[in-house]
């Protein structure tokens, strides 16, 4: 596996927008928008993120408002504060890691292990809990696998290709390049 490049949003930096790419990302500052990272994302204790995060492995020590989707794992360390849903094959919440939201381990509907299934049968009273996760994952699960396989262009969670940028792109010859006509 190629080594990912590294991106660091420093403590005194604020980013607002969409971040995408095959990189590892460390957030020490403030981030608002969307993240579709083919790599590991780490939110340091000083980091604050207002965005949904979709990455391979996600480690949080700071504050996040958004849903976290890890293709491999999600770890909330002591000091983490997350308001949002957590979905990953493996989820670890250390003592002191705080979350308010829906948490689900495993790969949604795709790779539910036997205990989950038998649990659903044995607990009719919990039917609404058992079915809701399956429903919410019916669509994203195959798309997530797609996103994990894709090597080239990064796709957003949900399997869509990146739509037009939020901020208008400065095209050569227009606003950005105020060249004088010859």
């Amino acid at each position, binding site marked *: 596996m190629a080594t990912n490049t590294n991106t660091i949003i420093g403590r005194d930096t604020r980013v607002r927008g969409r971040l995408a790419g095959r990189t590892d990302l460390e957030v020490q500052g*403030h981030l608002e928008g969307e993240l579709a990272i083919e790599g590991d994302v780490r939110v340091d204790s000083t980091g604050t993120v*207002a965005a949904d995060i979709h990455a391979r492995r996600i480690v949080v020590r700071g504050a996040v408002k958004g849903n976290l989707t890890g293709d491999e794992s999600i770890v909330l360390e002591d000091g983490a504060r997350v*308001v949002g849903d957590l979905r990953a094959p493996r989820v670890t*919440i250390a003592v002191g890691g705080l979350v308010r939201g*829906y*948490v689900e381990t495993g790969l949604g509907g795709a790779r539910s292990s036997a205990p989950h299934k038998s649990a659903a049968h044995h607990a009719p*009273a919990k039917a609404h809990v058992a079915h809701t996760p399956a429903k919410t994952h019916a669509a994203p699960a195959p798309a997530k696998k797609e996103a994990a396989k894709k090597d080239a262009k990064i796709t957003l969670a949900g399997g869509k290709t990146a739509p037009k940028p939020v901020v208008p792109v400065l095209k050569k010859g227009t606003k950005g390049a105020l060249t004088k006509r010859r």
Partner: protein
Amino acid sequence: MGALMAQAKRSISHGGPAVLGASVRIRGRITGEGDVSILGTVEGDVVVRGDLTVGEHAKVDSETLEAQAVTIAGEVNADVNATGPVRLGSTARVRGDLKGSEISIDDGAQFAGRIEADFELPASLGKGR
């Protein structure tokens, strides 16, 4: 070795920790004054004044588990309402909402449900939902 089925209410006397062994199957509500350790199968609410432990091969299906500290290593399909810490070990398989003073989930645990810890996000992220 035979299974023991108890219908309706089943109370556990207070004192030392009560252990419901691996071969015990209970259908009904369990209440306890002290600590309770479930190693078998329980179908019904569990309301315990002390700490509750669900063993690795145990299975609990109910609406609610109430206790001080709750430690789960087995299968639980219930909402957990603890006044103390809730800990899911690496062999835990839990479906239900968790509420407690502290929630921790070890790597390897299987879980689906809500966790509602009580805290505030920093001001830069606005109020939590």
